């Protein structure tokens, strides 16, 4: 019995299917990007600062409400406290050097969108999208990790139906906020007070 045709048929189906599935899964941002966790030059702990000490996100990321970028703080912002606190910590040597020499810090970008996507923080904060929605529980992270795929389909999931992801603007930086029991009522209230109409067409984000 010649098994070759069957063999060929199986191979011909399985191999392309496996290739497609492989690329589908392993090539997607869910696999390639989620969990990205680079080691930063200074082991800054969000868990300590934002979690235990309870600093507001906007102390450092000061322009998040008014600019497209949230802003990585200048060395000066670190030194505001560390001039007095942990003055001799070895971990802070690079920060002190930067402040002394004037040469800037070089942090490694964690959350990266492609250059042709023009994301803006200020619109999302104004719409009441919490920091935690895209960045995860930063206040529990010793090392910042990418939690969401930041892919276009992931963006569109929310743009098509923003209601479940919204919260009062006052709670945007609250890492521990949870939706009240009557989430539908809150959604309706937010939609009435602050209606949003997120773009789902190309020019909303691509220019």
């Amino acid at each position, binding site marked *: 019995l010649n098994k070759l045709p069957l063999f060929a048929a199986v191979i011909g189906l399985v191999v392309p299917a496996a290739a497609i599935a492989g690329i589908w899964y392993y090539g997607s941002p869910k696999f390639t990007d989620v969990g990205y966790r680079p080691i930063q030059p200074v082991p800054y702990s969000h868990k300590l600062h934002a979690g235990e000490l309870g600093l507001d996100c906007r102390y450092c990321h000061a322009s998040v409400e*008014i600019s497209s970028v949230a802003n990585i703080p200048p060395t*000066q912002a670190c030194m505001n406290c560390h001039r007095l606190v942990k003055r001799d910590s070895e971990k802070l040597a690079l920060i002190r050097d930067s402040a002394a020499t004037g040469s800037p810090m070089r942090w490694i970008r964690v959350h990266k969108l492609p250059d042709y996507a023009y994301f803006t923080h200020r619109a999302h904060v104004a719409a009441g999208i919490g920091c935690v929605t895209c960045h995860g529980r930063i206040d529990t992270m010793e090392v910042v990790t990418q939690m969401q795929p930041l892919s276009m389909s992931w963006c569109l999931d929310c743009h098509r139906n923003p209601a479940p992801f919204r919260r009062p603007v006052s709670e945007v930086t609250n890492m521990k906020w949870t939706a009240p029991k009557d989430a539908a009522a809150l959604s309706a209230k937010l939609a009435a007070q602050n209606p949003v109409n997120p773009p789902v*067409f190309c020019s909303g984000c691509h*220019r």
Partner: protein
Amino acid sequence: MNETYWRSLGELEDSPSFRANLEREFPEGASELPEGVSRREMLMLLGASLSLAGLASCRRPVEKIVPYVTAPEEIVPGVPLRYATTMPFGRSAYGLVVESHEGRPTKIEGNELHPTTSGRSNVRMQGAILGLYDPDRAQHVRHGDKDATWAEFVAAWAELEKKHLEDGGASLALLSPSFASPTRARLLQEFKGRFPKARIAIYEPVSDENVLAATALVDAGTSSHPVLHVENASVIVALDADILGNDPEDVRQIAGFAVGRRAAIDGKPMNRLWAVEAAYSLTGAMADHRLRLQSRQIPAVVAALATRVLGGAGGVDVPGVEAKWLDAVAKDLKDNRGRGLIVAGPGQPDAVHAAVLALNAALGNVGTTVTYHESANAALPRRASLNDLVSAMNAGTVTTLVILGGNPVYDASADLEFAAAMKKVANAIVLATHVDETAKLAGWSIPSAHFLESWDDAAAVDGTLSVVQPLIVPLFGGKGATELLGLLATGKDQSGHDLVRQTWKPILGEAAFEKRWNRVLHDGLLAGSATAPVTPNIDRQASSKLAAGTANGIEVHFRPSPYLHDGRFANDGWLQELPDPVTKLTWDNPALLSPATAKSLGVADEDLVTVTVRGVSLTLPVTVMPGQADGTVMLTLGYGRKDAGRVGSAVGADAYAVRCSAAPDVDTATLVKAAGSVKLSPTQEHGSMEGRPLIREGSLEEYKHDPAFAQEAVELPKLESMWNEKTYDTGHQWAMTIDLNSCVGCNACVVACQSENNIPVVGKEQVRRGREMHWVRVDRYFEGAPEQPRMIFQPVPCMQCENAPCEQVCPVAATVHDDEGLNVMVYNRCIGTRYCSNNCPYKVRRFNFFNYTKDTPELLKLVQNPDVTVRSRGVMEKCTYCTQRINAAKLDARLAGRPLVDGDVKTACQQACPASAIAFGDLRDPSSNVVKTKADPRNYALLAELNSKPRTTYLAKVRNPHPDLAVS
């Protein structure tokens, strides 16, 4: 509406080569690689790299974020700042508002408060931002062949100064371009006080000194200069004067002219423009009646008009001009006393200007349509002062020469042999933007700071004072002319900031100085500082002193390039690639000849011709220009630079070579056909209208009789779509109208768009292949016989069709519609099939045949708008209605908690347009300007019969011919 419009002589004749070219979507060889030299040339041009820093892993490249160490208080990353400043241009001052991203100026707009610009701009202003980042700018102080420092120069000057102070500066000379600046005027006075015997020359290769001389002749002493108030004029007579094009005050004058054009639409009297000129200009194109006439016959025209208007004995006839024509002009002027305006061009002799002044005064126009202002704070150009200086240099009486800007080795008249004279000067000190022709011969050359890098001040033509405020520290440690002049005048090295503040202390008063100074910096001008008009003395007999011109030989004209001016902007790629408004040529300056003159010489387009003026010859290609006066040749200055930089060197021919100091504006030449030809790169023949009525115009009579004449020009079939059409009845719906009645064809929109949207420069060879990238083009049409046709302009951006033909053929949905009616281009999806361009009836899509931005010098990347994607090879692109501005304005309004109102979004072209010809806004906002203009009965769509439903529509042009000449 039975006129035949044509775009070029080739089309009019329907020549086989024109046909062959036209029927290709892209010209022959368009998809082939450029070879050899041209490839290298292309790479030298500007562009930007998208290369990522190494693919260390397949996972993702590591990207660094570099924050500030100490954050500047006023800068928020991602939020642009805008500062008011001023661009000095000769004795004009352009009030600007400049956008800066994290300390990097990226876009120039006009300042709405400033009288010269009132929020609008011109080509020079838009192009200036690229000049800031020109990587070929002079980068070091140089002493001979060696790099030096400013401090070394200051020390060297201190030595030189001692010697010159001893004899009052008898062997010291200063050569400066013309300027109007309180600080520089003050320092020049101090310089004169310190070195009373020093020789001072003020030289401009493109000079309006004849205009000034007309008032000085009778005034003896101070000179006053005219300021035109075109908006007050019902009748404008332009005699060899391109008031709407090649004029430092073009923005103000175009704006004023557009007011008078639009008056007809509001039911008020419409202005009428008469033009008499040798070569076609934008003013001639806008004229209701244009007469082509050799420049040397203009005095006769003025005399004939004077006789008709003022009476008395004088010339009545002008050879070759119908008496009826002159009668009509004179009648029109007399019918509109106090509302007429006669202007003569700067190339006309003093006597013509004196006679024009007398005519204007007699008609009561002085004080209404033209006012005279004293040239306080100004150094007025005088070519004779350069002649004297050169004589002194040759005689060896000048040992130290300081050149405060300008490029006399290149742009002084050839017979002066400035370079040879300069070599005889022991110490030549040159302030120059580039290591140019002059700086190369200098003992000391000092890099000149860009106006966006230095402190200075300026006085506008009406006297309005403003401060030149830097937005960035000098990139190459350059020094402003003020700082160098300050060193010469005071012996002390002072910063421009200190010098300017010293000048402004008495102007603003010591009390509350800081507060007022900050107000001036904030507003960009000192409010209320315009000077009161003066009454010029008038020589009422001036018209009888007009000398008749001699009519022997071919008349040669020297005009400044409309973009490169005298050559100072030659290294600006945007301006080099911008099609000339009239000839539509890029990257070259051929000799322009009328069809009959060309025929008599046996030359055609691109053939070489040798022009000989007073024994000196120049060989350059020919372009046959319909509508030019027979027996004239027009040469354009500013090209043929030897040391302009990578972009501007060896482009075109140097017309200064045949310019003689005895007759720098108009001279006599002999022309002979030369062997060979040169390929030129015009943009106009890329497409044809195939007899379709794209341009619609009518006379004022027709308009009054039937305001909707334009809509009735085409009988539309019943327009039905093949599928269910999308409705656009929610949110904002963006649309544009372009008023052909106001548009003068100046091209400011094209450069503004280039600057806003990171549009690359592709080079001469690429333009010839039809690959220019401008998102908006200004089409030029002729109508009538090639000897004396009329000219009409039509700006064509993407029409943003609702039923977009491009979208229907894209196989990858890279061009689709958004909910706000924009036809959007998704670069990342585009695979470069070019089907969309093929199917676009308006031919507004541009394809990146190469990665034009790949080898951009790092410095040039700084000019790019961070809000717009830089496109790479193989990607289609086109006008987006400035979608980045729409998005930003929507967000700004939302965050401010207010609805978006009309005027919040301005496209780059709309903002720049000096004529306010472009209206843009939301179709669903009934109060918006665009809704009002769409309701105008003149509104029509291009190719409406295709049912593409373009969002961009046009308002038909209305002409206002004189009733006595209506038939002609």
